[in-house]
């Protein structure tokens, strides 16, 4: 028997605060025990950064899904479909298709040629110092933008889920979440982080599956009637058609192309995703990881299609927009409508766990890159022993954690949704061309890598600063000023081709040729996995 309440009483949400907190506390307690148990034998750098390469492909694939399905994906896409209909769905397709780039061109080759970080691969056959520094800088930039977006989003989530609307209270919750994250990463390293992501992914996908079946059951498992109900509630037949959000003007259409390009090419170059491929023992397991994550992520986005239209039909766009947290409240409100306080509490706890898990993954990636690429290779010139390197990494974790907390508190309430798209655009511009060139283009040189990475990074950031997201529009960060000479809010369509071009130009203009034997070694290692696989007994 499915009860169908007539309307969602948003005021009643506040009564569930204690329950939400209780379920979240339970999640923290359970994961903390697992992290403590898993981290007992964290000794070497490979243990700390790469979880001793001991995860299986299916475990790692689940963790990748946990890392990738951030609060922005779960709450953001469900909300986008609930409000903008089809255009929200289009957004999720870009996030999924992008994984084919990782599967076909990057994951296995990268697993075979690197050890801990993206810079390991990029500097393999080029000059260590300049390439490593550039790769570390772009890693830190991507992690910083992504991290800030997650932490700033925490504020609106807190007001929605915990009913805390004053600034001081929200700051306190952000501090608690940040401190928990630092503990997980300090104690558990990559192993602990991975377990948090695995558990979170299972809870998130299971919760979304239950809600999806529930919504479908209400409409007799008929997708067409669900869509019909969404049209009826919103009183707008266009929620089923493309263009509600991106089709307004020629500029917004171009903007969507630009966003699509950044999503599809950025995913396979996100440093925290790349680092996950080092936690498995072989390239075959790396392949299996991507296959698992494609299935899980694809399944999840199919759920969000039902959940988004379900929220549009059952809760209604007007109620969603009026609720604290706005668009992001679609999924929690739908949970409350379906399963009352208990389901809302579960979904809320999962949303918090999501922020925790994603932020932990970003923090360990940034810390590894700083300790391994900048400290050990550049500052200590390769003379630091592994213990010192891990010690530096742990200190970096604390520094980044504190920065994330402060960033979250001060960016709270700012319009920073563009930061996630910016992180993808920077990854696609600064990292992907160099990854592809160094894996597949024999002639590629250091100068090409450096031009492409700095050129891609700088052009992406400069174009964002000169775009309407920073100034010149009502929704800008600085609405008063107006220096928006670049019309698009996503720089990808310009910065990505530019970075590819710079990589090519820098190479053909480079008079120095790289070491032929290093190129041969990289190619042979990347395709055969020799030296990276466990050797067979002879």
């Amino acid at each position: 028997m499915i009860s169908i309440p007539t309307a969602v009483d948003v005021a009643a949400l506040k009564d569930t605060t204690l329950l939400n907190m209780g379920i979240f506390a339970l999640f923290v307690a359970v994961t903390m025990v697992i992290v403590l148990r898993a981290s007992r034998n964290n000794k070497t750098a490979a243990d700390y950064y790469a979880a001793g390469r001991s995860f299986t492909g299916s475990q790692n694939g689940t963790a990748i899904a946990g890392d990738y399905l951030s609060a922005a994906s779960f709450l953001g896409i469900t909300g986008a479909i609930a409000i903008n209909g089809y255009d929200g769905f289009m957004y999720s397709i870009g996030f999924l298709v992008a994984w084919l780039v990782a599967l076909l061109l990057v994951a296995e080759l990268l697993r075979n040629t690197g050890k801990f970080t993206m810079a390991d691969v990029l500097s393999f056959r080029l000059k260590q110092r300049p390439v490593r520094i550039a790769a570390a800088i772009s890693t830190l930039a991507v992690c910083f933008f992504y991290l800030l977006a997650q932490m700033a989003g925490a504020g609106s989530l807190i007001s929605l889920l915990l009913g805390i609307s004053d600034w001081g209270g929200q700051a306190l919750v952000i501090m608690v979440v940040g401190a928990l994250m630092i503990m997980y990463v300090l104690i558990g390293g990559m192993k602990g982080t991975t377990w948090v992501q695995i558990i979170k992914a299972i809870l998130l996908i299971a919760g979304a599956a239950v809600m999806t079946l529930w919504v479908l059951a209400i409409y007799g498992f008929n997708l067409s009637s669900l869509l019909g109900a969404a049209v009826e509630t919103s009183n707008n037949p266009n929620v089923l058609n493309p263009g509600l959000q991106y089709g307004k003007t020629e500029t917004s259409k171009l903007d969507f192309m630009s966003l699509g390009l950044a999503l599809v090419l950025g995913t396979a170059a996100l440093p925290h995703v790349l680092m996950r491929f080092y936690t498995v023992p072989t390239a075959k397991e790396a392949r299996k990881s991507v296959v698992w994550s494609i299935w899980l992520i694809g399944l999840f986005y199919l759920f969000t299609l039902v959940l988004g239209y379900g929220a549009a039909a059952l809760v209604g766009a007007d109620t969603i927009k009026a609720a604290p947290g706005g668009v992001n409240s679609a999924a929690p409100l739908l949970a409350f409508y379906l399963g009352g306080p208990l389901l809302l509490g579960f979904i809320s706890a999962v949303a918090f766990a999501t922020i925790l898990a994603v932020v932990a993954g970003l923090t360990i990636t940034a810390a590894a890159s700083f300790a391994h690429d900048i400290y050990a290779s550049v500052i200590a010139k390769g003379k630091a022993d592994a213990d010192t390197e891990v010690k530096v990494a742990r200190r970096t974790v604390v520094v980044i954690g504190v920065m994330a907390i402060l960033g979250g508190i001060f960016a709270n309430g700012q319009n920073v949704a563009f930061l996630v798209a910016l992180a993808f655009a920077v990854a696609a511009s600064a990292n992907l061309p160099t990854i592809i060139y160094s894996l597949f283009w024999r002639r590629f040189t250091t100068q090409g890598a450096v031009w492409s990475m700095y050129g891609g990074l700088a052009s992406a950031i400069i174009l964002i600063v000169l775009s309407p997201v920073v100034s010149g529009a009502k929704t800008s960060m600085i609405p008063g000023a107006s220096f928006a000479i670049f019309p698009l809010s996503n720089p990808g369509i310009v910065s990505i081709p530019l970075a590819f071009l710079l990589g090519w130009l820098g190479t053909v203009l480079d008079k120095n040729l790289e070491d032929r034997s290093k190129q041969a070694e990289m190619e042979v290692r990347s395709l055969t996995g020799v030296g990276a696989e466990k050797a067979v007994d002879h």
Partner: protein
Amino acid sequence: MGNSTPTPDVAASADFEEVQATEQFQKLRKRHRGFVFPMAVAFLLWYFAYVLLADYAVDFMSTKVWGNINVGLIMGLFQFVTTFAITGWYVSYCNRKLDPIAAEIRHGIEGHEFDKAGKRVGGGSK
């Protein structure tokens, strides 16, 4: 488990240029590129064709096919289907065409078949 980073590197003594030049490695390289490049181009074209249609052919995408299900939704869902299909196809291609050759070459290197002259591990001549 715990420490599966192979140390010392079994391949340290190999002459990779020699391996690269072998017919077997060239075959592996050709098979790998022959699959991943066309496939990457194909799915990117298909994805951007879809985005362009959604951007500029709104009427076509809004055509109802069955009940409230329109062309746009079917094409969107078909993107999921092709993504899953390419994934499965790639895995089966690797299992059949790439992994066996890669393993053979790897075992050859690990068995010191390609060692540089004079750098043979365990060789007492130097």
